[in-house]
């Protein structure tokens, strides 16, 4: 059959022409409607045509995202990203607005990461030195104090041992417990020769040859006698040869649940997606202390993210706004400072960073700085300032979404793994 033997429209031809918007005659339209009302076959054909059209319209093919940049490069122009960033003001102000929003999001994310990085770096770098120097300084001042108590102290010699009645208060990090321990004395050569049983509470102890200064007196209450960390305990042992450290650090696995910022303005109504979600903007974490300052773990939660991105639908540029509640998980690192607030034991600042993935979306990063307080027992409360950023893509283009706000958490020490 030739292509040219086209005849006036019959009902099914009129149907397809009408569906394509090509049926201009009102009379033909009316005739088509009459046929549709009378003919089940024609109605079935229309239903099939609609099914095919609906399927075809879902069959969108998008070129790779790199194509745009490659095209501009091949023409000796800058990349498409630069165009978006600079704003397409020559053509429309709306594109510039979109680009501006993207730049602001990227900028705020970068600033947040930078601030968190500085805080973590500040917390990480100087504290080891400070801890050590504090321990030694405390010990030195203690020696000086002890030497100033002239009537009670004397320079120890092998022949003139000093009396030590030691009561050591030990406080574990993360578990404020007071333990009393009597330190066994070091027998002098004379004692060894006599092989005389000695009372721990009233032992005459000779100075060890490797100790060049006097040991602390019994009633001293200072940081050196109160090791709060593994490093303090090791220092304690090193400074008291022959003695075992009274503090053996026991890392506690910590479980934490906390709220996350929803990223909404105070006056903004809660989106339906957030209302319907189960425990939105909540995260749980398990963390294992590497030592008294550093913790590693993982965290997962559900969180609402405001997303505003551009795309092409049906050949038109569109901006899409949505606030999905996403599930995410990631690896967490936390650094906590000890012995900062001497006026309130158990209160310490911390900084935390998490890197992870939001399911079906993309990579997610977050940072937190805050204060934690563990008054007694395994329970700990925390409050902090939390910021997060999500990278997601649509039609081959990447977009970011970030937010920040206060976070409140509750932690429990689950116990030791060893």
């Amino acid at each position, binding site marked *: 059959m030739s292509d040219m033997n086209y005849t006036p429209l019959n009902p099914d031809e009129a149907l397809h022409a009408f569906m394509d918007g090509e049926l201009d005659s009102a009379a033909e339209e009316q005739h088509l409607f009459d046929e549709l009302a009378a003919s089940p076959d024609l109605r079935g054909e229309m239903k099939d045509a609609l099914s095919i059209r609906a*399927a075809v319209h879902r069959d969108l093919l998008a070129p790779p995202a790199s194509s745009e940049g490659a095209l501009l490069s091949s023409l000796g122009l800058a990349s498409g990203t630069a165009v978006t960033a600079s704003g397409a003001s020559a053509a429309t102000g709306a594109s510039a607005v979109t680009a501006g929003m993207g730049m602001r999001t990227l900028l705020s994310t970068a600033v947040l990461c930078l601030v968190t990085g500085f805080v973590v770096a500040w917390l990480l770098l100087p504290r080891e030195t400070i801890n050590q120097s504090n321990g030694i300084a405390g010990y030195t001042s203690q020696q000086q104090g002890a030497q100033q108590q002239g009537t009670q102290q004397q320079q120890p010699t092998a022949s003139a041992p000093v009396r030590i009645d030691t009561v050591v208060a030990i406080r574990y990090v993360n578990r404020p417990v007071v333990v009393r321990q009597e330190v066994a004395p070091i027998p002098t050569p004379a004692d060894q020769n006599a092989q005389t049983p000695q009372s721990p509470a009233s032992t005459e102890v000779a100075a060890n040859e490797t100790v060049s200064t006097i040991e602390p007196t019994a009633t001293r209450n200072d940081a050196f006698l109160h090791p709060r960390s593994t490093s303090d305990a090791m220092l304690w042992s090193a400074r008291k040869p022959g003695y075992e450290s009274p503090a053996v650090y026991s890392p506690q696995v910590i479980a934490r649940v906390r709220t996350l910022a929803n990223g909404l303005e105070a006056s903004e109504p809660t989106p339906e997606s957030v209302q319907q979600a189960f425990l939105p903007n909540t995260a749980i974490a398990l963390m294992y202390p590497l030592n008294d300052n550093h913790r590693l773990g993982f965290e997962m939660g559900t969180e609402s993210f405001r997303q505003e991105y551009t795309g092409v639908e049906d050949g038109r540029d569109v901006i899409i706004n949505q606030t999905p509640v*996403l599930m995410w998980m990631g690896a967490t690192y936390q650094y906590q400072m000890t012995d900062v607030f001497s006026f309130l034991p158990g209160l310490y600042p911390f900084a935390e960073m998490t890197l992870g993935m939001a399911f079906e979306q993309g990579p997610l990063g977050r940072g937190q700085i805050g204060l934690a307080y563990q008054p007694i027992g395994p329970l700990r409360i925390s409050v902090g300032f939390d910021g997060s950023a999500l990278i997601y893509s649509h039609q081959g283009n990447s977009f970011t979404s970030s937010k920040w706000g206060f976070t409140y958490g509750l932690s429990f020490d689950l116990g030791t793994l060893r």
Partner: protein
Amino acid sequence: MAVGTMQRRKADVDETPDLDLYALLTGDDPTAQRALTILYRRYSQRIYTYCRKITGDNQTAEDLLQETFVKLFDAGKQGRSIDNFPAYLMTIARNLCLSHRARSKRQYVPVEDFHLTVRDVPYEHKELLHLIHMALELIPEDYREAFVLREYNGLAYNEIAEVIGESLDVVKVRIFRAKKKIREILAPYLEDLNHKA
């Protein structure tokens, strides 16, 4: 994993007419770059889809897409006058596809190399899409091209006539016959689909 109902609001970003953007291609580099970028984002999906459906190959379609816009850019720089931008752009793409097909002598496209969706669609729709792709392979090339330009690219009958260089009546016949043949091929499936619905 998304939880809850997403709230979407759409708004047009660019309303600048195609021909105004095309005219900006004669400007300095930054202006031409911005105009070309907007045109690319506006039409790249349609051109890529057309090239992909005609050539059946992702990489070839991407190459032809770029080549199409390079030719458009050159035409704009030279100040060539056009009346119907979508039809002109599609004509460039079509000519490139025809040239490619003549060079490669490739007449048939493997069915398994013919399907790439960028959206997650329900299984029934995936199955229907798969069958549509198969049906497209079974109809004459002229009909297929007319169907693709109409259904995938959304061109009007007169625009299709301009692109393929045929009369309006020929376009009408080709589109109608393409649809009838595709429906005939899919009839058992469509009957079952409608019965389920």
